[in-house]
């Protein structure tokens, strides 16, 4: 099959699946789930064929034209897109498979699987997009599918609120994103990812405004501060959704988008991006420490890791001096050098990939735990699950070790690449990221210990059991990927990647020497040691009893943003709306209409009759006018 057809197959199969489910399978949950999973299987196969089969191509079709504005839809399939597509395909299929078991008894299974299919369609659209308008279209569509899936348990007020919040906060980010796209179009005359590098290389003016506005989109989608507030709430959705959309793929789309527009970056913009990512990483890690809901721990962990990726991109991998011709106002030309700051695509995408594997694993593992414990999500009410759910326990342990950065697991390599970058570029950032890494290890081992060890602390936990094969297989698959996903070499090749993503992998910095191992083991040991010292498997939070001040401080830190936003919405936005509405009703409905009626009075008695009399008067006036006109035209008078 041709490359383009294969890519279109990957894109359109989920759309077809969603359409069929919406039209015919609303009441046939089982069929819908099989169809959607089969579609995800097709996507995974097509994605792997495209990625590993050497298909690299560009294709584009004009979608519509008004005057000089042409909007086209197209595919840009390079190593970066191939990598992202492979991740989406593989993780997507694992999550679909897991959902077969997890959602088996859900009354609205069809809607759920339809939503997953729409999500796959939209996400693949982002991956393939060859221009920013197209990316924006699918960007909004993933927002919609996220809305739909967070709102799955829509009779719960919290789910209804969370879905609304997710969509609106994302739109705030998209506000900046869209302005950035329009500015990019106005400044460079194109938004095509293929043409932009040529325009830039041609010496076009660069500014920090455009990349930063585009970054607003990433801040919304990848939940960077201060637009991170929607992601913890998004845990209201079913757990497989959290794994796929709110951990592995959609929230990583912001990082993917940044890598796509790397050519637009300037040093100032990268600096801002680096700091936003770093602060998010630290803040979220601190919040994760005081969560008692297993999914919320993972949600803040995701935020923190996304911050890592954003920081990695902002750190940049190298600075290149490129000779260019500089034109002067008087027309003379001069040779000069321009320092091109290059975003840290390699390290960011590397961590995105490994994170997709181990975080999807952790979320699906938590889903398995929640499923096993009959929808209990509080870790303090679990306990003793290591024996009752051995496969979940072992795979999740691998996930915890991977995210904590145990040497030879995937997270070790990708996190180390980022720390290495930070160490070279900026010691403050390096210090913050190391603290974050310690915290990561700390809160992950806290969760792991309290969940799996000790006595079962509730009836649900006592009756816990392992899910079926569809639930354990994806866990095993993702656990394997979490181990081997980190092996890449200096030449851009990798153990499971082959040479397929050489363009991306060759940009990964590879720190050498024994120090790397020591550093990582130290970080892990300090975090884990603290966690073991502070927390014992029991019904209460160890930190809250031993260091209550720290616990309260962290809780306050976590809640401050939500409180701030709630205050803004209730006290500022809604009040302002009410005041405006009041003015609208009083001024416009009251005064102006009276005033206007007065003016109309000047039209004379006839017009007055028209407004104060009955409706029928108007009809008669109209008919009379028509008759008179006809008569006049016909020459009667």
């Amino acid at each position, binding site marked *: 099959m041709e490359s383009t057809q294969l890519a279109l197959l990957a894109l359109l199969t989920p759309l077809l699946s969603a359409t069929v489910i919406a039209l015919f399978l609303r009441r046939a949950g089982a069929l819908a789930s099989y169809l959607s999973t089969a579609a995800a299987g097709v996507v995974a196969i097509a994605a792997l064929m495209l990625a590993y089969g050497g298909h690299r191509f560009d294709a584009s079709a004009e979608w519509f034209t008004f005057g000089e504005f042409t909007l086209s839809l197209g595919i840009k399939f390079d190593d970066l897109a191939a990598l992202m597509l492979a991740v989406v395909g593989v993780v997507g299929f694992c999550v679909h498979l897991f959902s077969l078991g997890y959602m088996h008894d859900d009354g609205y299974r069809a809607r759920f699987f339809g939503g997953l299919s729409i999500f796959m369609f939209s996400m693949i659209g982002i991956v393939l997009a060859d221009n920013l308008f197209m990316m924006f279209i699918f960007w909004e569509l993933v927002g919609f599918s996220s809305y739909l899936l967070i*709102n799955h348990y829509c009779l719960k007020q919290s789910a209804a609120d969370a879905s609304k919040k997710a969509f609106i906060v994302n739109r705030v980010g998209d*506000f900046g994103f869209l302005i950035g796209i329009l500015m990019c179009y*106005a400044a460079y005359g194109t938004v095509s990812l293929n043409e932009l590098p040529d325009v830039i290389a041609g010496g076009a003016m660069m500014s920090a405004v455009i990349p930063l506005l585009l970054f607003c989109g990433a801040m919304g989608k990848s939940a960077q501060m201060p637009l991170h507030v929607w992601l913890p709430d998004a845990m209201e959705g079913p757990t497989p959704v959290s794994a796929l959309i709110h951990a592995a793929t959609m929230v990583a789309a912001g990082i993917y988008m940044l890598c796509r527009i790397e050519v637009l970056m300037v040093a100032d913009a990268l600096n801002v991006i680096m700091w936003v990512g770093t602060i998010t990483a630290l803040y979220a890690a601190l919040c994760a420490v005081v969560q008692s809901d297993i999914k919320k721990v993972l949600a803040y962990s995701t935020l923190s890791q996304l911050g890592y990726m954003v920081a990695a991109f902002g750190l940049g991998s190298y600075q290149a001096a490129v000779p260019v011709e500089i034109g002067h106002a008087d027309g003379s030309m001069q040779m000069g050098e321009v320092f091109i700051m290059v975003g840290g695509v390699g390290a960011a995408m590397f961590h995105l990939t490994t994170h997709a594997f181990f975080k999807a694993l952790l979320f699906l593992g938590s889903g398995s735990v929640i499923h096993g414990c009959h929808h209990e999500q509080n870790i303090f009410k679990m306990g003793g699950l290591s024996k009752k759910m051995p496969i979940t326990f072992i795979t999740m342990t691998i996930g915890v070790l991977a995210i904590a950065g145990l040497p030879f697991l995937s997270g070790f390599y990708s996190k180390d690449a980022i720390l290495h970058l930070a160490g070279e570029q900026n010691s403050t950032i390096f210090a913050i990221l190391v603290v974050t890494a310690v915290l990561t290890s700390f809160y992950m081992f806290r969760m792991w210990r309290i969940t799996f060890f000790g006595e079962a602390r509730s009836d649900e936990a006592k009756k816990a059991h392992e899910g079926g094969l569809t639930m354990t297989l994806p866990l095993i698959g993702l656990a394997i990927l979490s181990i081997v996903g980190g092996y890449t070499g200096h030449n851009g090749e990798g153990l499971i990647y082959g040479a397929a993503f050489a363009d991306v992998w060759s940009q990964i910095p590879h720190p050498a020497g024994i120090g790397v191992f020591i550093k990582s083991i130290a970080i892990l040991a300090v975090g884990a040691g603290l966690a073991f010292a502070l927390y014992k498997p029991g019904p209460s939070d160890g930190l809250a009893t031993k260091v209550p001040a720290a616990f309260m401080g962290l809780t306050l830190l976590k809640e401050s943003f939500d409180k701030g936003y709630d205050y803004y919405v209730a006290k500022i936005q809604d009040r302002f709306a009410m005041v*405006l509405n009041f003015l609208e009703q009083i001024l416009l409905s009251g005064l102006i209409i009276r005033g206007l009626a007065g003016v109309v009075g000047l039209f004379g008695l006839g017009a007055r009759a028209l407004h104060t009399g009955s*409706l029928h008067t108007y009809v008669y006036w109209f008919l009379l006018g028509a008759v008179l006109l006809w008569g006049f035209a016909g020459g009667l008078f």
Partner: protein
Amino acid sequence: MDLLLIAIVSPLVLALAMVLGLPKALARNLAYVGFAIPAIIGIVLWCQFGAATKESTYAFLTSYDTGLSGLGINLTLGLNGISMPLFVMAGIVGLAAGLYALQSAAERLNQYVTLLLIMQGGLMGVFASVDVFFFYFFHELALIPTFIMVGIWGGRDRNYAAMKMTIYLTVGAMLSLIGLIAIYYTSGAQTFDMIALREAIAADGLSTVAQRNIFGLLMFGFGILVSLWPLHTWAPLGYGAAPSSAAMLHAGVLKKFGLYGLIQVALPLLPEGAEHWAVILATLAVVGNVLIIGIVTIAQRDLKQLVGYSSVMHMGYAFLGVACLSVVGVGGVVFMMVAHGFSAALLFLLAPSVHHRTQTFDLDEMGGLVKHAPILAAFFVAATLASIGLPGFANFWGELTIFVAAWKVFPTLTVIAIAGVVISAIYGLRAAAKVFFGPQTEAFDKVLEEKPATDLTWSEKLPALLLLVALLAFGFWPKLMTDSINESVAEIYPAVESAVPGDVARN
């Protein structure tokens, strides 16, 4: 056979037949035909449009002498790339409104349907007329039944609403009539024929002063009809009171008369006047319609008022596109008009369906309706997302194109306009959440005890499906419409674009 004439006349003939006292059952069955014919003809002509021979952008031209040729008035019918999409939209929305009305339990149904048929005939006439006089005449023909329907079949405050609508819309129509007559005289062409007027003015343009004055009249006249801020207050009130099918046809289709007039008549004939007023128009539209009305919409607690205000808000985007005075801007507006026609009609169809089940329009007394009416919820959420410009629905392309065009001319205003995208998400999703999601309120529990809620019936589902399919079709495949729009606009608009000192404005 002149299909355009049949599309206009057949609803009118059936309305007449109903008045003359056909047996009720027969009359109702015939009324289906009366609503179906314009829609079918619209689609047939749409398919033929690309290959049809065109004269000055118009295809299917025919002319009838009505005895008014002494005044330069002939019933000249035809469609160009601007009117054709609107003609098709009017046909489809009319069919949906008719189907909904015929299955409704309205009192004195026959009279109600008769008025709707008259309105439908007028609407088809508006967009098929090449003659400015008949363009105006058909508008009035469609407008009068609206007033009567609001006054008789309306809901809360119907008398006040009908009166207010009548005053505002009459003033608006009068101002625009004065403007149109002024064009007739000052052009010296002594004709209302659009093509002849365009040629006459192209040969010998109007003076700048005349252009400015006439455009001002048309802008405010048409502006009132399209609810330009601050002349919009009739709209939320009127739509709040109007019976559903009347609101569908007015908000969806008839309201577009003003925008259509600006695009088809005012801008091409009065380019310098347009340039003079463009900044004012754009500012009123963006600051007034989009920002102020957008925020006012957030404060609404009545579902129908909310839908009415959101419709006023979205007209701001259309005015902004008009004020760009460019092919891109106007193309976006035409697309937006069609899309908004479908989405506004759909929302005005679904709001009473919600009321039917909750017995209230008060958002605070609803909640959890999705449990009882999942399909209604799906339609409503889809309509909401369409109207707030989610890609995949037609509205998105219109908004996006307008933003692209506006960025070149009014960057600051465009930023405010894009902020409207966030505002509309806030009120749209809030409304959807309050009606359908979350736990049931006590008030709704009580209503359910007396009258258990059911999901959408086929008589509601069919017209809703018609509109939703149209929104999705144009949303996924905009080329269905854009090619012909672009062709006509590009031919008519060079005069406008060259009149604007664009390079100054754009740098």
